[in-house]
């Protein structure tokens, strides 16, 4: 099973890229745990998670080929 991950703003900077594919990840919580292990600086960043474009606020199961996007808040004007 494969999951696509898109990163924006500070998250893309912390992950050093904008688009990733990961396998063997079953829920959004698993994904976040995995990403925090891989990219330590994510721990101090804020972001919202979207599964197939829908913003979610709690853990969600993931299916093959789902796209998870990580959107940080911006304040610049």
């Amino acid at each position, binding site marked *: 099973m494969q999951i696509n991950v898109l990163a924006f703003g500070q998250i893309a900077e912390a992950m050093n890229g*904008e688009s990733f594919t990961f396998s063997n990840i079953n829920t959004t919580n698993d994904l976040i745990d995995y990403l925090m292990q891989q990219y330590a600086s994510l721990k*101090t960043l804020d972001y*919202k998670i979207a599964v197939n*474009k*829908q*913003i979610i606020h709690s853990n969600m199961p993931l299916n093959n080929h789902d796209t998870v996007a990580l*959107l940080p808040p911006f*304040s610049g*004007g």
Partner: protein
Amino acid sequence: MNNHLYDRYQRQILLKEFGTEAQAKLFNAKVLVIGAGGLGCPALQYLAAAGVGTIGIVDFDLIELSNLQRQTLYNTNDIGKHKTTVSAERINAFNPSIHIQTHTIQLNNTNAYNLIYNYDIVIDGTDNFSTKYLINDVCTILQKPLIYGAILRFEGQVSVFNLPNKQNICTNYRDLFATPPLPNNVPTCNEAGVIGVLPGIIGTMQAAEAIKIITNIGEPLCNKILSYNVLNNKSYLFDILPITHHSNNFPTTKTEIENFNYDWHCGLNDTVTEIEFYEFEELRKNEEIKIIDVREEGEIPKVEAFSCINIPLSNFVNKIQNIELTNRVVVFCQHGKRSIKAAQILKAKYNHLNIVSLKGGIVEWEKQFNDSIY
């Protein structure tokens, strides 16, 4: 509509979705643009050009050299003048047939409600979370459509809050980010930079959303947030659903807004003591204090009335490694927000020292200083 006005708007009246009816709707609309900076400048230009009948402009800042790279209503001769005055002058020249109201004030929890109340639509062109959450909460209480915009480095975000879709679903910023991030977790454009054309694009999109909402054409970005990247031209639309049970407290009435501390809510003065003008003056007279200006190079007003050292916040952490501090420290910036961040950083390193931040920043200090000598 007289011939002169018809000629002015002829290209958009020609559109079959538009016509004279939409033009009349624009003329009757009242749009408030909060922040006449990177996002506000292009938004103001296009709203005025399109013929929005009443445009309000809120800003309390002065034009600086570092603004000109992206705030395209201003030119080099305008440095030091109020953004409200100059932007009103410019858009009045674009279109003298519209009514422009300037509000040269710092939007806060006591004035926001009554100001926003008088307009139909609000465009958020502000540059900090305290004000963004304040505007969001006021617009949500008043059920005013709010066109949100935010930028950083090469990416921008646009959304429309408090506008119900056909299914009557309506969301706002708190349905996306229910609580503000910690202040050190999100850099500002002052620290991380921004490419000049980006606010031009995002601010223009905000104007387009306002025109669509007023004239009832197309699909406004309600319940969606658009993320746009200028480097690769990629955009991504997120869907937002209402959060039905908020676990956090935030104001839901006018009175609650007036009693709410947005700076504290956004973690800005968690641990830092802020001093007022007169306290600062007392300290300057009576103590050997170290005064640090944390603004970036070239920001105005320049300080001549007292001596201070300049350590820009963008490189603060590195620069303070080599500095010896023994006395009480007062940090200041333009308006007193960045200096709180700087004070927090200093406190983490010199926890034995008394570190305070000048409330309202150098702009407020200068105002009170001038008042005190005349």
